[in-house]
Every structure is written in C-alpha cells, then in structure tokens.
C-alpha cells in the first residue's frame, strides 16, 4: 500500500449519530479488540477482504489517498457549521492517526471539527497525536475488570493510562457503553464503571443495547454472530439513573 493511502470500508455522509451536528463518518478497517458482539465485523481485520454478494465478488475496504479523503470530507463542509464535522470511526478510528496526521493538520486548518470513535486501547504515540487534533473523543467503555479483559482482548491498564492522559489534557470525552450481559453488564463491571465515571465526570455518557443489524455481514464473512442475553429496559433505566445521580448526562441510544 502506498504511504499516503489508507483503507476505509465506507464513508457515510449526513451522519447524525457519531458526534455533534451533521458529520461525515469515515470507517477505517482494523481494530485491536475482539468484541464478539461487534456490529461492524467487516472492520475488525486491517486488510481488504473479499466476500460474495450472491454470485458477485465484492470487497470490504478500499484504498483511498489522503487527498481524496480530504476532498470527500470537505464536500459537506457547509453542513458542519453548527458543531458538525468529521468522525473517524472503524474499526478503531484512532489506529491510523499516525498515517493520517497530514490530513488532520489540513482539517484543523480548515476549522473542521474532528471526532474519533476509539477503544483507546492504543499506543501512547497515537494518543499524543490525537490530543493535538481531536475536538471530541468518543471512547468505548467496555470491560474494565482486569480478570475479564481477555474476553474482548482489551488491555485495561493501557486503557486507564490513556483515559487519564485525555482528562489531564482537558479533552472532551464522551463514553459509550454497550450493555452486554456476561460481558460489560456484570455486577462487578458495572460497579467498576460507575466508580470510573465518578472519577472522571465526562460531558456525556451514551448507553445502548446490542442490535443484530450486522448479522448479514457476519454471514458474508463466513462468521456467525453469537447469541447474547438481552438486557431489559428496566435494567437500562436503572443504570441510567445511577449514572445520572453522579451528575452526568446520559443518553440511551436506540441504534
């Protein structure tokens, strides 16, 4: 792959759920975590992947140069005016940050609001780059219980260190919590999450339950999306209240 090219699986314009205002969301391929409920399984692998739609050969991911990516992002510049901008997502939106730093510089110059959706289980170097450019971090808050970290291949201490860094640099952080029984939604993990939130008091917490909209994509990759226990609305509301008591704004996102 050329030096100035990255692999994206899709570019979604008029995206309304990935940060403030109207946004263009860039989905990069590649993620360090292995969450079994992932709704974008086509973005876990870092490479372009072949699949079949009926008899037709298709691919998840394509190479795009940074200048073309910039062009795509700037197409909707005028719609970003009221707080909107670009969101780098994935996969993990933060992983290609070293490569896309020239693009980030240009976007910052153009005064484009930048968000990133990340697990934050990334190197110190990437966090340092991100802090320079990102206006809002949308950070997953999943398993922060060391002994269960293996379930999603996360690294809790690295995660905690990075979070600490973001907050000590006064970054805007939104936490996103997927509520998955036996994984993120266990008595122990929830209590740890609440303590964690209490400590950092983020501007917003978004909670959501799983959906199975990605199921067809699993099939196309010859994978099977596992079954999960579902969390009840009552449980969701209870958790919402518990976070609100901490003085933190909570949104329950229904897809």
């Amino acid at each position, binding site marked *: 792959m050329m030096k100035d090219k990255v692999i994206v699986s899709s570019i979604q*314009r*008029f995206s309304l759920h990935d940060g403030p205002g*109207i946004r263009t969301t860039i989905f990069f391929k590649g993620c360090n975590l292995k969450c079994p409920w992932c709704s974008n399984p086509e973005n876990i692998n870092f490479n372009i992947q072949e699949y079949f739609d009926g008899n037709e050969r298709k691919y998840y991911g394509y190479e795009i140069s940074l200048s073309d990516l910039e062009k795509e992002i700037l*197409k909707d510049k*005028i*719609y970003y*005016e009221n707080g*909107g901008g670009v969101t780098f997502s994935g996969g993990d939106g933060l992983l290609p940050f070293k490569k896309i730093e020239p693009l980030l510089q240009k976007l910052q110059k153009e005064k484009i609001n930048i968000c990133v959706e990340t697990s934050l289980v990334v190197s110190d170097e990437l966090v340092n780059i991100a802090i320079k450019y990102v206006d809002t971090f949308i950070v997953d808050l999943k398993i922060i219980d060391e002994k269960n970290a293996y379930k999603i291949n996360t690294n809790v201490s690295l995660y905690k260190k990075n979070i600490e860094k973001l907050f000590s640099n006064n970054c805007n952080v939104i936490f996103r919590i997927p509520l998955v029984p036996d994984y993120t939604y266990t008595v122990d993990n929830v209590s740890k999450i609440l303590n964690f939130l209490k400590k950092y008091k983020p501007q917003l917490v978004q909670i959501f339950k799983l959906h199975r909209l990605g199921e067809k994509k699993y099939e196309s990759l010859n994978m099977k999306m596992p079954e999960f226990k579902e969390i009840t609305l009552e449980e969701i509301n209870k958790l919402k209240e518990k976070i609100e008591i901490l003085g933190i704004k909570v949104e329950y996102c229904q897809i």
Partner: protein
Amino acid sequence: MLKKIKKIIKKCIGKQNIFCMIRIKYICDKTYNNHKFINILKTIQKTKFYSNSKNKTGFSKLVKNIKIKDLKENENFYYNIDMFSVLVTPNEVMGNFCIDYSLFIENSLEELKNKISSKNNDFYMEELELINGIEIYLDRIIEKLKISKKYDVITNLENIKNCKAQSYTDALQRILFFNMLLWQTNHRLNGLGRLDKILIDYYDYDIKNGLLTKEKAKELLKEFLIILHRDFKIKSNVLLGDTGQIIEVGGIDINNNYLCNDLTYLFIELMEELKLPDPKVLVRASKYMPKELISESLKCILTGIGCPIFANDDVIIDKLINFGYDKEAAYNYGTSACWEPYIIGMSSAQNNIGSLNFMQPFIDLLENEDLSKFNNLDDLIDKYQTYLKKFVENLVLKINEITFEKDSLLSLCIANCVKDGKDISLGGAKYNNFGLTGVGLANVVNSMINIDEFIFKKNIMSFEKFNDIRKENFKNNDELLKKLKSNGLRYGEDNDMVVSLANKIICYTSKILENKRNSLNGKFKFGVSSPNYISDSKNFPASFDGRKIGEPFSVHISTDKSNGYTELVNFASRIDYNFNRFNGNVVDFFVTPNFIKDNFDKFIDFLIASIKVGFFEMQMNVVSSKKLIEARKNPDKFPNLVVRVWGFSAYFKDLPDEYKDYLIERALKNEGAI
C-alpha cells in the same frame, strides 16, 4: 346505453371543458363501479352549456343562470362552483397561472371599469361586458343572501363593486370570489399567490383597531382554506389533488429583507392543523429567513402532508432577472401548478405546455444509428445532441400549433392586457414565455455512464449486442440488469463527471431553445422536474440505466441512495440553472418520520445549510414504507394518508396503483431496504 354514453362523451370532448373532461375521466376509469357511473351520467345530462353567440358572450348568459347557493349560519364567505353550468370553450383555455389578487383587493369593479370605459374597441367592449356580467352575478348572490340575512357577507360582496377592500374578511372574500370565477370559467391550475404579503395590511389594520382578534383571524383563514379545498375533485387536473392551488409565503424583497409576518406562520400552522392535501403552501426560502420559520415549516412537513415545499430565493430570483424579467417582478415571483416559477399577475406563461422527454431522442438514436461506430462517450453525446435538437424542434412546432381561447377574464387579471387593449390569448400579457418540463434526464445520464463503463471502458460486449439485450427488456440477463442498476456513479451524486454530463445535456437543450419563439412571440424555458415520470414512461422501451419497459423514469432531482441528502443537495446546487433553465428544478426525497423526529435540530441545520449550498427547490415525503405498504393493502384504514406526488399532495388512496407502487419503491430505497 353505450351509444348514449358515447354521444355524451363526444359532446363533452368537443367542448374542451375541464369539468366535462373530469367526468369523462371517471367514466373511463374502470375502477368506478356501476352505481357511481350512472350518477355521473346523470350529472352530464343535467349540465347546461353556455356558448358565445352573435350578440352575447357565453359568460354573460352563464351568470344570469348560474345556480346561487344560500349560506349556512356559520359560513362567512360566499363560494360556489356550479358544476352543472358550463361555459363552452372550443379552444384551449389558458391555465396554469397565478393572478395577483391584490388587483381586486385594491380596486373595485367600478374603478376597473373606469380604466376601460374611455377606450373603444372590441377588446374593451368585451371587458366591459365581462365586468357587467360579474356585477349581475354579484347582484344575484346578494339578493339570495338577503333572504338569509347574511349582511356581513353582503357588504363584502357589495364592496367588490364599489370600493377597495375594507377589511381582512373583505379581502379574503374577494380572493375567493375571483378564484371561484376563474374555476367556473374553465381555468385550470389556479395558483393563489403571496397571500401573507397581500393580506397583511388588512390583518394588521383590523387587529390594531380592535376589529379583529388573532383567534378570529385564524378561524376565518381556516374557513378560507377549507372552502378552497372543498371542490378539489372537480378542480383536479390529471390526478386528484393536482389543482395548482399553491400559496407562497415568505420571501426576500429587493433589499434582501425577508418578508415574514403573523400570516406567514398562520398559513403554516393551519396546514399542520388541517392536514389537507390541497391547497398547499410553498415557503420562499432564503439565507435571510428566520430559523423559527424553518422550524415551523419542518414541523408541518413532519405531519407527512408533503408541504410546505421550499423555493430558494437566493438562487431563483437572479435567474429570473437574467432571463429578462423586471427586477421587481422577479422578486415578487410565485409559482404556477407545481413548482414552476411564475411572474405573478403578469404572465401567460403556460409553464407546462410540453413534456421534454430527454429519453426519447436517446432511444431514437439507439434505434436509428449504427452503434458499432461509437467508441467513446464524447461521440455518443455528440450524436445524442443531434437527436435532442430534432426532438426539441418538433416539440416546439407542435406547441406553436395550439390556439388559445379568447379570455376576457384572464385578460382583466393579467398585466398588460387591459393597458394595451390586447387579449391574453393573442399575447397581451406582459410576459409570454412558455415552459417545458423535463423528464428522464437522470435516466439518460445513468444510461450513458453505464455504456461508458461496460462498453467503452470494460468492453464486456459489443454496443449492438448490449442494445439487443436492452430491446429484449434484459430478458434472461438478470445479472447484467443488477449491475446496470447498481453501477457506482449515478445521477444525484456530487461527482464531477456526473455533474458535468448532466450540465452538458442541460446547457445544450438551453441553446436549442434559446432562439425559438412561441406563438405569442415569447421565449421558451425548461426545467428538470416534471409531472410526467410515470405517464411518459408507460410502454416506453427499456433503458441502459437498468429501467425495464414501462417502468417509471426517475423523479425530479432524486437519488436511489438512502440518506444521501447532503450529496443530493450538493449535486442539485451544481446544476446550471442559468438562462432559460429555471422552469422548476426540485430536489425530491423521502424521509421517515422518525428520522426527522429523532434528529429535529440537526435536520434544521441541514435545511439551513442546504439553502446556502443553493438547491433550487426542495420537497419531501415524510412517510415510512411500512405505512405505505399497509395503506396499499388496506386503503380504508388510511383514508387521510396524504403523500407528495410530482408537485402536489394527494390522498394516497386516490392515486392510481402505479403511483402507489412507485412511492413504496422509493420509500424502501430511502430506507436502504432494497
């Protein structure tokens, strides 16, 4: 029985009368059951026809005999179209316009007469006879209302004769009265104009002087709108709901001040409250408009009634001025029928006098040319232009054969007929530019992109073979058809190649029409929105965009993509609407109600940005595919479901099946379901 019906139909067709035509339409409509059929037959038999004779115009006979209706106690306005009294008009009656009702609000009939009486020729004699006829009609109504002691209404009707409007109610009555006259005399597609602007002085004065409360003003306006809606079936042109009754509100003035008042909001509020498909409101949008007005408009749109639609002053007005309209007239533009910009009260525009089917010359090319000689897209486009030229020239010739009916009433309404003593049908209006509505452009563009991709670039087969497959309706070629439908680039994407291809065709069309003149010595203009995407595509051959025989053409400026709204608006804003290309260019898309509800503020941001980006016009259907599918199966459960069709709103149940199916298909595409 059948003989009798045929005789009646023949009689009606000969008279070219809109009411008769509608009745015939019902008769021919196979879905109509026997019971209704007999009623319709009786209706036709009951009808009295009035035609011009040596000494008397048909109109002066009609007003003496027309049925006068009494008013109920709670009614504040007189309005009654007598569908059994029919004026015989052997030629095409000019329709599709928007008179300036302030002419009748600011002037009494007496004053209008004074402007005429000093002059002496046939035109003025006929105008005088017309006004005398109107007075006779008014007197007959007044006599009838005396019985029921409707003195308030009587005063307002008397005022029409003697003085300018005296109050808000008076002004509303005048609009209704002259609107009624226009419908009664076979004028179809009657626009209503900028009523918030016209009425505001009367409203303000009455409120200020304690003669009217805001509540009462709303009540009266509500009654006014319900009255205009009442006869929508007989007012409809081709489909039920297609009446052209559009009210424009808001808009910038010559100094870029945005005109917006209590009535602007009241019209929108009432649209939202009444949820009627007709009349409908068009909001003249601009970067200068208040956010609150966008927000109120969006709330109304959210009800799903397909209104208001937005026309972008910041784009449209310049185009009108550049085309040759006076600055003041351009700033006061309205619309006729659907979304064709119209110079209010000054024009004989005939804004949809011909269908500019971009696909027809393309099919002609495919049928007549040796396709083996084409190696690249440029050659194909060049040849297409030759065919397009021939097609447009023939269309113009056909249009110029139309003879219009002499029209005293419309001549009274439209400047400069009275001033110059010339009937509107002979070119008396200040502006006489006719409009064509373009359809199938997206299908041509997508076809060309596919030919370029699969034949010229990838060379998957010969052009002739490709054409044979098309001619056979892609029979046994499902895989290819799928590819043609889903090929990367499509009309509606803000991609340089797509935009430039569309603009190339549009600009060439513009050039062909530039020097053509119509029978009234006016120019031609055109747009890329059209009501004909279903009617023109019936039995029409398959095309390389993946459209099979008889399938509808693309709708206005639209996309197959789900949620591709910014992309579509960007594309629309890059289309070159200059010169003569402003005859309606509407961005049309579907949104599910929840999508707007869940993102209301962001959707407002989207609209504000879209106005700045520069769409020409914009309309949307806010409905889910699920609801449409249910309503298709169980129409009785959804009697009031309103949808937006080409340029008007209609009850979903009233639409022919092919329109219902196409709406469902487009809704599903928007939701990404197909």
